[in-house]
């Protein structure tokens, strides 16, 4: 083939451009550690990466939701444990207030029960991040309001909450409620921690009854009714603590699953997006060598041309 003077130069420039293009791509991969940066680098990998990132972002959010619910549940559990202690104390008072106790002793017991009612109401008005935990979705006001007479005795405890519990998503399509409401007398729906028509629990009214029977010295009513009722309340609270524990265990397990999923997704994303550094470095070295060879060949060609012209001179 006949070779024109510009043929070799143009060919060399073309080859060197090709090498430089490869080199730029490899250097980019080496410095970023990514084989895919733009959609056109690898469209199907890009789609996978975006899908995986969207899924990973959801998982991170579910983890955040779980953490939020765990904190709520933990705060609620503390309140429920306080309530259980109160129920035990009330039970002990009811047991001790038998026919052998004097009225002054019974009055002292009544004062203690009044105090227990206040403590229980306080526990039921526990807040988490500004929201009341046991008022259902009516969580912007204290769920329980204690009414007292002029002597300081509790006449009633009003429930201001509702029977709807908020639930949050902990996995795709899986929602979870972590706490009971204060009272539910509808016979369906969320469990009531203080009052629940299904279990017969009505803790505040039972405590008020105990308080009043202590004050009136009606020890027979205490032993006949109040003790039994308080046992129902205690059982209900224990049941709710157990339920809360189970829910927290489930969340811990779910958090572990999400953690694994997150790690797995991260690995998958990495496998799609990341460059094989060792391979890239090897290719980069090869490309650099090719570029040096091309540059030397170009310089050699220049010398060759000069020597012919010199010869003709």
């Amino acid at each position, binding site marked *: *083939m*006949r070779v*024109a*003077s*510009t043929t070799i130069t*143009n*060919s060399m420039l*073309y080859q060197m451009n090709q090498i430089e293009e490869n080199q730029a791509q490899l250097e980019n991969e080496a410095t970023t550690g*990514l084989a*895919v*940066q*733009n*959609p*056109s*680098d*690898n*469209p*199907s990998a*890009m*789609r996978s*990466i*975006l*899908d*995986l*990132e*969207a899924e*990973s*972002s*959801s*998982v*991170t*959010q579910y983890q955040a*939701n779980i953490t*939020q*619910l765990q904190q709520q549940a933990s705060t609620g559990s503390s309140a429920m444990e306080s309530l259980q202690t109160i129920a035990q104390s009330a039970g002990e008072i009811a047991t001790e207030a038998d026919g052998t106790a004097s009225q002054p002793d019974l009055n002292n017991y009544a004062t203690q029960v009044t105090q227990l009612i206040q403590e229980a109401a306080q526990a039921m008005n526990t807040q988490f*991040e500004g*929201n009341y935990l046991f*008022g*259902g*979705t*009516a*969580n*912007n006001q204290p769920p329980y309001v204690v009414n007292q007479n002029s002597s300081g005795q509790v006449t009633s405890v009003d429930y201001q909450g*509702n029977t*709807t519990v*908020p*639930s*949050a*998503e902990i996995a795709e*399509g899986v929602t979870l409620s972590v706490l009971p409401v204060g009272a539910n007398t509808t016979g369906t729906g969320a469990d009531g921690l203080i009052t629940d028509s299904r279990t017969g629990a009505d803790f505040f009214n039972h405590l008020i009854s105990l308080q009043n029977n202590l004050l009136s010295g009606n020890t027979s009513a205490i032993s006949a009714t109040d003790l039994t009722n308080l046992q129902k309340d205690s059982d209900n609270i224990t049941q709710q603590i157990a339920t809360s524990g189970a829910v927290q265990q489930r969340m811990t397990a779910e958090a572990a699953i999400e953690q694994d999923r*997150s790690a797995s*997704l*991260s690995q998958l*994303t*990495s496998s799609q*997006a*990341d460059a094989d550094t060792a391979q890239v470095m090897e290719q980069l070295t090869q490309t650099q060598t090719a570029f040096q060879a091309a540059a030397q060949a170009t310089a050699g060609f220049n010398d060759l041309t000069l020597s*012919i*012209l010199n010869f*003709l001179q």
Partner: protein
Amino acid sequence: MSVGLFQVLNMASRAMDTQQAGIEVTGQNLSNVNNPNYSRQVLNISTSPSVATNIGIEGTGVQATGIQQIVSQVVNTQIQAENSASSYWQTQQQALQSAQADLGQQVTSASSNSGDSSQGIASALSNFFNDLQTLSTEPNSLSERQVVLGDAGTLASQFNQVSQQLGSLTSQLNNQLQTDVTSANQLLTNIASLNKQIAAAQINTNSSPNDLLDEREEDIENLANLTNISVTPETNSTVNISIGGVQMVSGDNVTDTMQVYDAGGGQMLVQAATAGTALTLTGGSIAGEIDARDGPVATLSGGLNTLATQIIDAVNAVHKTGYSLTGSTNALFFTGSNASDIAVNQALVNNPALLQASGVAGDTGDNTIALQMAQLANQINTGLNNQTFSQAYDGTVATLGQSLSSTDSEVGDQQTVQQMLQQQRSSISGVSLVEEMGNLSTYQNAYEASAHLMSTVDQMLQALLGIQTS
């Protein structure tokens, strides 16, 4: 009788003229060694007419018969066709690279490790729905509402920005289309004018106007860069040019021109101005601009508009049924109808309490609506080919990526083909310094020999004249 000394003197003179012409042609070639549009020339020489003498037919030396341009019309035609193809793909590549940059969807090192893309609509979409999830855990939190509305605003503005940039890209392509059509018409005029000069030069000088042919070939190839053309050579060395089946140049006449017209809805296409025929173009930058605009760019733009519309409709449909912290209801969350005008309802931005997260009037702790809105992220939408919002967006991104990736491959292939053809043309028409230096030396030596012949004959004549005078 032989031809005689005077005839030999003439022979030497013609030989010197011929070698000088050879030097001139070589000089022209050497001067144009780096001119990419130049085709090398060679001096055609032949023996001059011989004469009959008493000793037989005697030669009278050499004469130059013409200067020939060394070209391959086959290769030139292939280069014209490949120019059209290359230009078509390069124009598409540039347009799609711009679209990809406008979309701004990249994977960053941080994102591949943390699984959280730091930019692009994908990230904004995830953030918005994640914020709604967080709001569902604290439905009456004003700060969480502000976060939701802030990220919803980011999502909307990203849609607006990409939509506006894609609109600008479409306008740029339309402007470039107009510019290219103007350039093509100018080239058609130039080619017709050169046809006229070439035909005239051939009649007047009875020789090939090589430099004009080079100039016309350059114009034809530039025209091929703009659009696919059909070139038909005529016997008088002129060429006829047709574009999209419509003859544009016939000899020295421009019989038609290209014209940009609105095919409806602002879709700018090209027609033959005089014939009024819509031109179906398959190559060149003009077709590249039209196909990029109406193909991948329009698909991307349409995909984003559909996605934005679906998000607006779906989020609003749920939000309208909810109740705000003030008890108000039936408010829109997003205003607008597509990617170009999607925005967060300004009333909510001004007062985040108006965000309707609750499903029960007056029950501010209820999170039903916030949760329903959050769960839209995983909902299959029939309007998006049974995909979620993210899947639809990811598909749109991948489609653009696929278009650009295919175009990149086409451009790469075309570069290789063009390089091979250019090499082929160079091997035929390119100037070789080595060859020309050899020619120069050959002509120089021949010239010296002829001069020596003239000198020898002159001495012989002097000797002859000396005999007569003595």
